[in-house]
């Protein structure tokens, strides 16, 4: 009897990544296939592990702030906001009103930048080449505002514990307003390219369905949860940094499929613009920095503070032992938890859907691996 040939094999185990372009960094997915059908997956992660939590235990509170930018590097401002809020909570202080308003403007701009990068790369993965150029063109304008504000484009370190380091530059408000006016027609333009595009709809509709109950079971948050029909956003549920003052809607989907996640994120960009418009009109005058000592020594205790980052719930759990360094600093990254649901979403689908689903989860491996 001859040995079974390769062609006889019904199940095939192959590697996707870690250098595969559509895994958005260094994610390795081991796929078990039956023909084109996915029987199961296993994620291999940790290629970018830098020990951020250990570094946190060995730096003072202020020294650690720039490190958080390196986790979700496409939404560095959100990371910084979460960290600053957590330490402020531990110190039981609040940033001044002016600082809070500027924080909201920059964080929402960052949400737009993050979603734009997601849209561009996701469309590129699916096979639509054009949107990525458009998206990066608009993202560039956001990065220019960051650069003017704090000198950095990606790893911004825009906020400080207790407020802001820098006053806004001359013409900040006008530039942000100009961006908002200019940006909304661009979103319509993306929608014209994609929303009713037959190929786009065919590739996304009904792919990678995750129901609301499954989302809760897996701890999945952010646009993925909202696309499953759960109207939940931390900015509304437990407002921070003055979000309760602004009017905005929480977009939701119905089916929890990849297409719904696309529409939810598109609408989120519009809503973010709406928040920015309100916030930038109402930046109060006053100090930008609260009364924070040069050396921060929070009292003994522990807090968990989380924000709605572009990818989902980003939390910081900090234990203080009344020294200048955190005794324990835990980051609860949305990408890591959301990625866990990948197996559930791709099972029974096609190989090509795996690419679409990794894209729609919007993971950043810097945050998954920390």
């Amino acid at each position, binding site marked *: 009897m001859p040995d079974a040939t390769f062609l006889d094999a019904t199940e095939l185990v192959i590697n996707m990544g870690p250098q595969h372009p559509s895994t958005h960094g260094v994610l390795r997915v081991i796929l078990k296939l039956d023909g084109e059908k996915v029987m199961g997956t296993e994620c291999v992660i*940790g290629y970018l592990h830098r020990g951020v939590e250990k570094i946190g235990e*060995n730096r003072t509170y202020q020294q650690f702030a720039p490190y958080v930018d390196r986790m979700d590097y496409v939404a560095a401002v959100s990371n910084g906001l979460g960290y600053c809020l957590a330490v402020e909570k531990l110190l039981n202080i609040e940033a001044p009103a002016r600082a809070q308003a500027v924080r909201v403007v920059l964080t929402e701009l960052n949400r737009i930048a993050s979603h734009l990068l997601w849209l561009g790369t996701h469309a590129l993965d699916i096979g639509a080449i054009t949107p990525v150029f458009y998206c990066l063109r608009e993202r560039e304008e956001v990065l220019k505002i960051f650069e003017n504000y704090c000198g950095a484009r990606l790893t911004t370190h825009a906020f400080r514990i207790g407020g802001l380091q820098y006053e806004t530059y001359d013409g900040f408000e006008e530039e942000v307003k100009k961006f908002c006016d200019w940006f909304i027609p661009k979103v319509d333009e993306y929608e014209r390219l994609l929303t009713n595009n037959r190929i786009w709809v065919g590739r996304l509709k009904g792919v990678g369905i995750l129901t609301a109950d499954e989302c809760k079971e897996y701890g999945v948050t952010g646009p993925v949860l909202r696309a499953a029909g759960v109207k939940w956003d931390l900015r509304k549920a437990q407002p921070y940094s003055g979000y309760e003052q602004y009017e905005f809607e929480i977009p939701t989907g119905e089916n929890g499929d990849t297409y719904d996640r696309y529409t939810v994120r598109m609408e989120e960009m519009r809503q973010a613009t709406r928040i920015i418009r309100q916030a930038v009109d109402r930046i109060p005058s006053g100090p930008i920095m609260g009364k924070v000592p040069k050396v921060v020594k929070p009292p003994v205790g522990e807090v968990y503070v989380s924000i709605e980052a572009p990818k989902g719930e980003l939390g910081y759990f900090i234990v203080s032992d009344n020294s200048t360094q955190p005794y324990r600093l835990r980051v609860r990254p949305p990408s890591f*938890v959301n990625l866990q649901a990948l197996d559930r979403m791709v099972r029974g689908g096609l190989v090509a859907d795996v690419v679409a689903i990794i894209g729609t989860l919007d993971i950043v491996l810097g945050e998954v691996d920390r």
Partner: protein
Amino acid sequence: MVTTPWESDITQLLKERFGPDITQFSTYLGQNFLVAKPDAVIAILEALKLELDFDYLVDVTAVDYPKRPERFDLVYILYSFARNERMRVKTMIADGYRPATAVTVHLAANWLEREVFDMFGIEFEGHPDMRRILLPEEWVGHPLRKELSILQQDDSWVKENLGIESGQ
């Protein structure tokens, strides 16, 4: 900023149900937590999920106190969509104690517990896939334990696999 006792319908129900298994109900800076005996934790998580709507396990993590006899704090952070409320379940365990897995209650615990194992060396009893998640399988040591300094790494692994002297 002091820790004050926490009382609500949640604590009432849990007190009736678990009695001496829960040793403390507290609030610090407006955040509620309870401290329970390690054996009771999974039953508490289950009761919280099924009867009090704490259906979202946000995070599982640990804190290392090497000088204490019960060396680790194991922390479960929970959230309830229906109540819009957050709480933490804490328990203290000794080194080598194998806490029961929470995967039976919340699927989200799978990777989170693997990370706790990877970083602290706490093995969860009954976990479906108790392996390292971020570090390589052959790595020696658990980096978030306090006895490991930030400069210390598994030199032999680095030498063998990366072909370099220690990166530090």
